[in-house]
């Protein structure tokens, strides 16, 4: 297997990882820090992608579309938080599962209603289209590099926000004891709405970027959502650092597994079965990874909750 292929795949893995991170970071805020299981996070990803695609197509500018997509996701996130999620913080996880499952149904069908059942296609902006030649000599798509760079920035910003600022402390405090933080003078309800909207905006951003790369369709958020859950569980729920490392681990494992395993099985099987077994094993790989991590460290790689 040539080195250039390994490098390119490693970059692909990184890009997948970063995309997952954008989803996972929002989830880890909502799930880990605010203590809410939000199955509908994938819907916000979808909203971001659809609005970006739609606005880009009508206005003719990807960048305006992207801005609109992110803002729409944030706005929808804020709306959902105020209308539904807010009532669920005090409930147990089961009610949250049911309510956000219902939100998935509503969002999927609503999106279908507004935008139709067919996928929308979004073009990569001219500025980021085409490929650049990497130092090693092989070309690589600019857009994927841009995604990697953007993810790194978001990761840094979030990490600083959560671990270094009072805002971050207050959010975490709110999870530990929501009533108490209020009694000490913090308007936790508004704060949570903002955090939720921020998580939604990040999901929308991820959706728009991936949408431009792949396609924009109803249900696009669900596979990513599950992977994002895997990511934050591996990383340690509530830890932004954990989300980043978990995301990259999952992205690279998945991408590398997807080419290495089929070719490994290809050595002693026919192509069709090798792909089937290899790629399915590759998809199992990340879950194996997760089970392994949890079996050894039941709180993930970077546990934040050292509860008594």
């Amino acid at each position: 297997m040539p080195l250039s292929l390994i490098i390119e795949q490693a970059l692909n893995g990184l890009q997948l990882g970063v995309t997952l991170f954008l989803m996972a970071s929002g989830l880890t805020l909502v799930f880990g820090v605010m203590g809410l299981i939000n199955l509908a996070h994938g819907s916000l990803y979808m909203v971001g992608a659809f609005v970006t695609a739609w606005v880009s197509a009508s206005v003719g500018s990807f960048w305006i579309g992207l801005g609109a997509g992110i803002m729409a996701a944030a706005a929808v996130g804020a709306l959902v938080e105020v209308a539904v999620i807010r009532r669920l913080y005090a409930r147990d996880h089961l009610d949250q599962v049911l309510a956000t499952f219902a939100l998935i149904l509503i969002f999927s069908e609503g999106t279908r209603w507004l935008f139709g059942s067919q996928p929308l296609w979004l073009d990569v902006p001219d500025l980021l289209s085409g490929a650049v030649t990497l130092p090693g000599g092989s070309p690589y798509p600019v857009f994927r590099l841009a995604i990697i760079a953007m993810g790194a920035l978001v990761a840094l910003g979030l990490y600083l926000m959560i671990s270094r600022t009072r805002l971050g402390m207050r959010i975490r405090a709110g999870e530990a004891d929501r009533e108490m933080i209020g009694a000490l003078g913090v308007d936790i309800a508004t704060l949570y709405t903002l955090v939720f909207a921020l998580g939604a905006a990040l999901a929308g951003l991820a959706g728009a970027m991936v949408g431009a790369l792949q396609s924009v369709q109803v249900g696009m958020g669900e596979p990513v959502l599950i992977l994002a859950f895997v990511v934050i569980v591996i990383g340690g729920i509530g830890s932004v650092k954990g989300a980043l490392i978990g995301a990259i681990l999952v992205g690279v494992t998945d991408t590398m597994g997807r080419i290495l395993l089929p070719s490994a099985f290809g050595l002693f099987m026919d192509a069709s079965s090798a792909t089937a077994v290899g790629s399915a094993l590759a998809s199992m790989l990340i879950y194996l990874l997760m089970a392994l991590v949890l079996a050894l460290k039941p709180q993930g790689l970077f546990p934040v909750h050292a509860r008594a």
Partner: protein
Amino acid sequence: DTKIGMITTLSGGGSHLGIDVRDGFMLAIAQSGRTDIEVMIEDDARKPDVAKTISDKFVQRDNVDILTGIIWSNLAMAVVPSVTRGGTFYISPNAGPSPLAGAMCNENYFNVAWQNNDLHAAMGAYMKDAGVEKPFILAPNYPAGTDALTGFKSTFGEPEREIFTQLGQTDYAAEIAQIRASGADSVFFFLPGGMGISFMKQYAASGVDLPVYGPAFSFDEVILGAVGDAALGVFNTSQWAYDLDNPTNAAFVESFRAEYGRTPTLYASQGFDTANLILSALEVAEPSDADAFRAALEAANFDSVRGDFAFNSNHHPVQDILVRQVVAGDGKPTNQLVGVAVEDHRDAYAAECNM
């Protein structure tokens, strides 16, 4: 009254196929002027279990006479055998998995489109003639994908490298990396619907510049519209082209454009032919008289948009396979008929079928 149940894909990345089959089908029904035919349509979302549930409902609750509409072979494999064994007619406007053409064929099963291998086999032959030596070939891992590569190899011989992708996959970075590293001289891919769009867009952005080939499924008008100029100049094989010169076709293309405001794809033509086949048989017999109706279907006594059309012994078409090229069109690229690849093609499985 005749009840027809249509199970097809109307949502998700495979939806434009189902939509065109449906629209082509309904256009023919409308043109027939018959009001005694009830067509019930449901979306299978390209999920086998959903398709199975819908077929149970059509058969058990609605007592349909004829089922049709399935786009994807994996769904067809889940639904068709039990339906046809139960005595209901199934007329396929698209999916043509090899088992149903061969060992598992059934007297109540007809395919109006093609057997899955056909277009790929024709492209294999074409590429061999064109002097391609080391193609990298890929298709989704499901019955039609396996058929596609089998068909290709049956005429081309061994490719440089073959890989299978996942059905419904949207990210092809890993495949493109492997293409880049493979040392192949060309790419043949079978990626229908949204898969083709994603692949072509990512391929164009990747900086890999090997020529690509494929069946018409990878280059239908919807895909071309979404990928833009990246596909210009590409050759592909099809059993039909909108610029195919015969009066039935000219009338079909014109009326389809008038009705739906777009150029039909091959899927629309298949839906249109399927409906016309059924209509032609209904002229002769009722589905309740199964033997007579079957005989009427076998006669294939209708004007196909493909010109000559006849059924082989396994109820699959005998037809010409054409070659088309992607050219710049009016605003977006389109396909242009450039020649015939194989005349009166018959699929490879008829011999295995005894009904």
